[in-house]
């Protein structure tokens, strides 16, 4: 009997102690004590965990490095492949934009038929300002056909082979083009030069030519179709003692950057040389 009463009392006391501890814990009174107890335990656990991780990484490191190297090589290969793709796409985009502009030009000038060609080479002689295009007589190109870009006149074909053609630029010193100035309607002759600059000669003294006037092909002489834009007047030199005025022309085409050109295939130059009187002829 006594023993059962004692056991019950012990149980009650333990329950009360437990309830008391719970009440103290809920009230926050045990926090300092728990901190004192837990801190060394946590430190010990942290130390053991870090040592364990160190040993684990030491044991598994060679395999990880090999995997990482393999992955790195793979990623580098993917990266270079993607960079190549980007460059290719950029080139395609640039080509597409040029072709799109050329198509717009062709639509705006439906009276002509065009053959697109890529500039593949430049003349090896620095005295000659010619380019070589990748279309020739097999594609219907003939000597004398005018060559343009979406911006304006490039010049004409001077020699043709089966798969390529020589194109003389209007900046070549031997090139001459009959032009008409807008809005003055004055006729003049455009010549190239060794420096690559374009100049207008034979402008009548009475013509009212100003900077900013447009120079277009006049069609005179039969070498070029009329109304193809060449450039703008950049400066005029007019002296009273001269027979004609002269002017400098800023071309609309950047001849150092030509990549794709259009050849006007339905234009045939007119050979007027038999009509030019020769000295001594009746």
């Amino acid at each position: 009997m006594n023993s059962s009463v004692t056991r019950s009392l012990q149980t009650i006391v333990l329950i009360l102690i437990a309830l008391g501890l719970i009440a103290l814990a809920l009230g926050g009174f045990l926090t300092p004590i728990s901190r004192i107890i837990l801190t060394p335990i946590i430190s010990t656990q942290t130390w053991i965990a870090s040592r364990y991780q160190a040993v684990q990484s030491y044991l598994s490191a060679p395999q990880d490095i090999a995997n990482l190297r393999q992955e790195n090589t793979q990623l580098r290969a993917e990266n270079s492949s993607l960079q190549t793709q980007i460059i290719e796409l950029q080139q395609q985009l640039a080509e597409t934009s040029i072709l799109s502009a050329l198509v717009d030009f062709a639509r705006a000038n439906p009276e002509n038929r065009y053959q697109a060609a890529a500039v593949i080479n430049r003349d090896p002689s620095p005295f000659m300002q010619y380019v070589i295009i990748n279309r020739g007589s097999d594609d219907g190109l003939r000597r004398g056909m005018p060559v343009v870009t979406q911006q304006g006149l490039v010049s004409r074909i001077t020699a043709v082979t089966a798969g390529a053609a020589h194109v003389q630029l209007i900046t070549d010193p031997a090139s001459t083009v009959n032009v008409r100035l807008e809005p003055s309607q004055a006729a003049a002759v455009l010549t190239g030069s060794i420096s690559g600059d374009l100049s207008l000669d034979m402008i009548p003294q009475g013509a009212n030519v100003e900077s900013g006037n447009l120079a277009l092909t006049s069609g005179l002489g039969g070498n070029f179709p009329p109304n193809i834009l060449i450039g703008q007047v950049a400066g005029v030199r007019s002296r009273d003692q001269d027979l004609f005025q002269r002017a400098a022309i800023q071309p609309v085409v950047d001849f150092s950057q030509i990549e794709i050109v259009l050849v006007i295939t339905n234009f045939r130059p007119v050979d007027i040389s038999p009509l030019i009187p020769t000295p001594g002829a009746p």
Partner: protein
Amino acid sequence: MSTTTTTRLFPASTLATLIAIPVLGGLMILQTSLVSRFPLLRGTTDLVMLALIAWTLQKKVTTAWQWCLIGGFMFGIASALPVAAPLVSYALITWLALVFRRRVWQVPLLAMFATTFLGTFISHAVSYVTLALFGVPLPLVEAFNLITLPSMLLNLLMAVPIYALISDLAKWLHPEELEV
């Protein structure tokens, strides 16, 4: 005492002539597609001329005139200049290089520079005269300042690497005889 030489399918001189076609052709393609896109003022490097000079200056080379002919024709085909102009100018340059090879044989690099210097003048003078005969108006001073002087500078800059390459080619085609 005996000598050993490499056995080949063709004699060295025939091979040297045949190899001019890919070598000069490659240089011509490089010149028209790449080098001419990077001018200095209006001047450009003449890789074919430099290769011809370097080849002619090699001691054991006997095919200088064959290279001159092949190079001249290639230039004439690629350029809008009349074919005769590069042929004449390259013939004069080859002759000049042969003279320098005899006179300055101990210092080939000096001969290379001297021939490049004078060769640029000769090549441009022939081009100038040819174009003048065809009625192309070319102001002399402007041509000299804008084309000849920059071209000369570029040619002199490229003279050493081209000489080294052609020298290696010549050594491969005409190996030194080994005494056994």
